[in-house]
Every structure is written in C-alpha cells, then in structure tokens.
C-alpha cells in the first residue's frame, strides 16, 4: 500500500477547466449536494479501507518568518487573490498509483451549479514510504 495526499486548492494550480461561480452564488441545494458528495466519498473510502485522514483549512492564511534575535516575527498576508491557497486535503492509502489517480478524479467530479461536475484540479502527492528491510 502507498499513501497519497490529495490536495484541494482555493486558488492556484492549472487553469480551471470550467469557470464556475463561487459557491455562495450557487443555490442552497447545489451547495448541499456538493458537500454531500464530499462526505459520501470519504465514507465510501472508509468502507474500502483506503481512508486515512481528511482536514479542511480556513482561507485566512499568513506567511511568517524569523527576523533575527529579539525581533518580532515578520508576516506577509493574508492575500487577496494572488497566491496559491490550500483549502484542504485527504490522505488515502491505496494499492497503486493508478488507484490514487482514479480516486482523485472521482473526487474532482463533485457536482457544482446545475448538478454538473466542476472538473476541479486536485494535486496528488505521494508520501515517502518506509525503507524495506530486504533489498536483494
């Protein structure tokens, strides 16, 4: 088994396939259907034994760094519309890279306005695994 991180972005990534309005401009039923799709997906993965973790992040992000001894931290942000912004992630533990692609694509098909898939770009990142004990 191999673990993969499926990253969902608020912004950033490749050019959107379908330009769709922000969620607060959908109908309430469309919002509910979208949220429900995500939930059902996670529940199904728990059922297949492939679910590891899922977290969502608030868009209120700040960059921060050390600025030398005795000085307060330097911050940059929050950002309006320019920087890449991660919205959340799901960690899956699957048999193959192909399976990871299949699941990520399925998650990307979550419904949007009019109930059609939003074709959202998701970023798929493999975790580093363990070093095998037997190498020859």
């Amino acid at each position, binding site marked *: 088994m191999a673990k993969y991180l499926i990253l969902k972005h608020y912004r950033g990534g490749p050019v959107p396939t379908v330009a769709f309005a*922000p969620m*607060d401009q*959908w109908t309430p039923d469309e919002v*509910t259907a979208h949220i429900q799709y995500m939930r059902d997906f996670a529940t199904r993965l728990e059922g297949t034994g492939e679910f590891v973790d899922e977290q969502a992040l*608030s*868009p209120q992000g700040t960059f921060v760094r050390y600025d030398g001894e005795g000085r307060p931290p330097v911050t940059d942000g929050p950002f309006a519309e320019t920087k890449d912004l991660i919205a959340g992630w799901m960690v899956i533990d699957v048999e193959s890279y192909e399976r990871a692609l299949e699941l990520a694509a399925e998650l990307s098909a979550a419904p949007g306005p009019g109930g059609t898939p939003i074709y959202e770009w998701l970023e798929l990142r493999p975790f580093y695994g363990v070093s095998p004990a037997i190498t020859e």
Partner: protein
Amino acid sequence: MDEALLRTLTPNVIGILVRRGADFASAEDAVQDALIEAVRTWPDAMPRDPKGWLVTVAWRKFLDAARADTARRQREERVEAEASPIPGEDPAVDDTLQLYFLCAHPSLTPASAVALTLRAVGGLTTRQIARAYLVPESTMAQRISRAKRTVSGVRFNQPGDVATILRVLYLVFNEGYDGDIDLAAEAIRLTRQLAVLVDEPEVAGLLALMLLHHARRASRIGPEGRLIPLAEQDRSLWDTSLIAEGVTILQAALTRDRLGEYQAQAAIAALHADAPSTAETDWPQIVEWYDELLLLTGSPVVRLNRAVAVGEADGPQAGLAALAEVDPGLPRHGAAAAYLHERAGTPSDLERAAALYAEASRAATSLPERDHLTREAARVRQRLRS
C-alpha cells in the same frame, strides 16, 4: 462493567491516596493505572467492593512506582509508615472539591486545566481525552503531566475560587458537541457533582445553563452534521424533562438574589426554551437579560448577541443601530449584520446580506459554520433572483 461508576469513584480514590501521604501527581498516575486495569479485568470479574478494589490496586501501583524510583526510597519508607487512613469522618466530599480546585488552578492554561479535570475528576483515560480533542495520545499525556508539574507545589487543602472551576466546566461543555466522547454530558455530570459539594447560585446557574442547552441538542445538528439555527430548529425535539429540570434549578438560584453571568445566560436560554417559536419569544425580556449580562461581564460578545435580540424586539433597524456600537472585528459580527439586513428586507439590504454572509463564511472558524454561512449566502441570492 459500569464505567460510569468507575469514573465517579476516581476523585474519591485519588483523595484517599493523597491522605495516605502520596503526592497528587503520583496518586493521580496510580489511579489512572488502576482504572485501566479495571477496564480490562472488571468485565470478567466484577469486584464486590469496587471502591475498595480501586483503592487497593491504586495504592499498590503507587508503591510499585515509588519502589521503582530508588531516589524516592526514603519517602517511600515514610509513606509506608503513615499508610493508615485517617480515622473518623468520611473525607470523600472535601477531597473531591479539593481536586476540582487543584485541576482548575489559576496557574494552569485553560487547555491544561480542562485535560487535568477530565482525567483526575472525570476519570477519563488519556486516550479518551486525546480523542475528544483530536490530538495524539502522547501529546495529551505530555499536556497532563506538565499540568501536574505546574500544580505540584500547590497544597492540597487550599480552597480556591469556585469561578475558576466553573470556567473550566463551561469550556468542557462548550467544546463538547463533536467526537466519540460525549464531553457535554461529562461536563454536566461534573457540574452536577460540584453542585452537591458547593452551595453557590452560580454553580446552579451553570448547571441550569448546560441543561437548557443540552435539551436542544437533537435539534441543533441536522442530517450530515448540518448546523440548524435556533429559528429553524424543530422544537418538538427539545428534551422537555431537561428543560423542566434546568428551569427549576435556575428559579431556585435566582431567588437567592446573587446574580452572576451563568444565571443570566441560563435565564436567556430558559426564555428560548419557553417559546413555541422565534416569533413568539419574549425578546424584550431577553434584551433585559442581555443588559444585566453586559453589566456583569462587559463582554463584546454579549454586546453582539444583544444587538441581534434588539433586532428581534424592536425591529432590524434598531438591531443594526445597536450593532454599530459593536467592534466589527468580532467573530460572528458579519453573520449578525447579514441576518439583520436580511430581515430589513429591501433589495439593497438583501444584496448587503448576501455579501456579508459570503464574507462571514470565509472567516468562519468551523466547517459546519462555514457551510451554513455559504448556504445562507446562496439562499439570500436565490431570494434576490426570484
């Protein structure tokens, strides 16, 4: 096995070990080990005297730990010599109250006080507490042992301020609605127990407040964890026996004429519990209680909630005027403004409401809240289109 009984006995047994000469930190560790052993062995062989069993096993664990630590050799001998319990009156009541004070000691951070209270007074295992707060078990274990180190110099027989205990229990209750461990129910149990030990109107007030909110629990969360605001809650789901109990406790507390913030909050909850709908709620009286609460606390959050109540009592314009006095940086300020603008109802108010809901959803601090506010924005926009 009766886990509830086990948990009730916890503070009592810690108290007995401390009276026998164990320091609080070691006594608490020993009782935790005994609890874990009880969970393992009681289902097969329930002891006839559960408390006696726990004391015996915890004391043995304490001695084992003390023996293992050669640096403690001398103290161990002293402790062995003093091992007979103090005869006479049952110290259980005082001991339990002392534990509440110690675990809510002002030198502890709120998170540490909560964790220590749940373990030493509540008898939850570290694993259960860790799961309830979604942190790794080792992290929670560290938090608890650091907390114990912090209070290690505090004398066990020092009474503290009951208000510090109430704050800790309030925190446990308020964050206790998610997760496998029912922290809200646990907070109620611990507050009930405290109300037996301390005869203070504010303790009763907090208990009433918890009961009145707990009564609405089934209607607060819809299918798929969806947040349902008070106005839309199915009031037939409210637990009338909890409401009756909460109101009775509150009334008895209020007659003692020593008002505090928990009694005032409970009074507001009781007025909601009394009403068949939002429209039939006694909003003017709720505003009066918010005024009392504001005098007691001066809290900006109270000011915000008061503005919403004013909007219900005297109309949305009055509510918006009251809201203008409140710091706009406050969480939920945007959502409150959106709500009042929607009630004002003109097309420009609705536009404003939708924008404010959308903005509030981006500033939300929980997923159910974010989803709820997004849906509210969507709903107002739909209303504008039709």
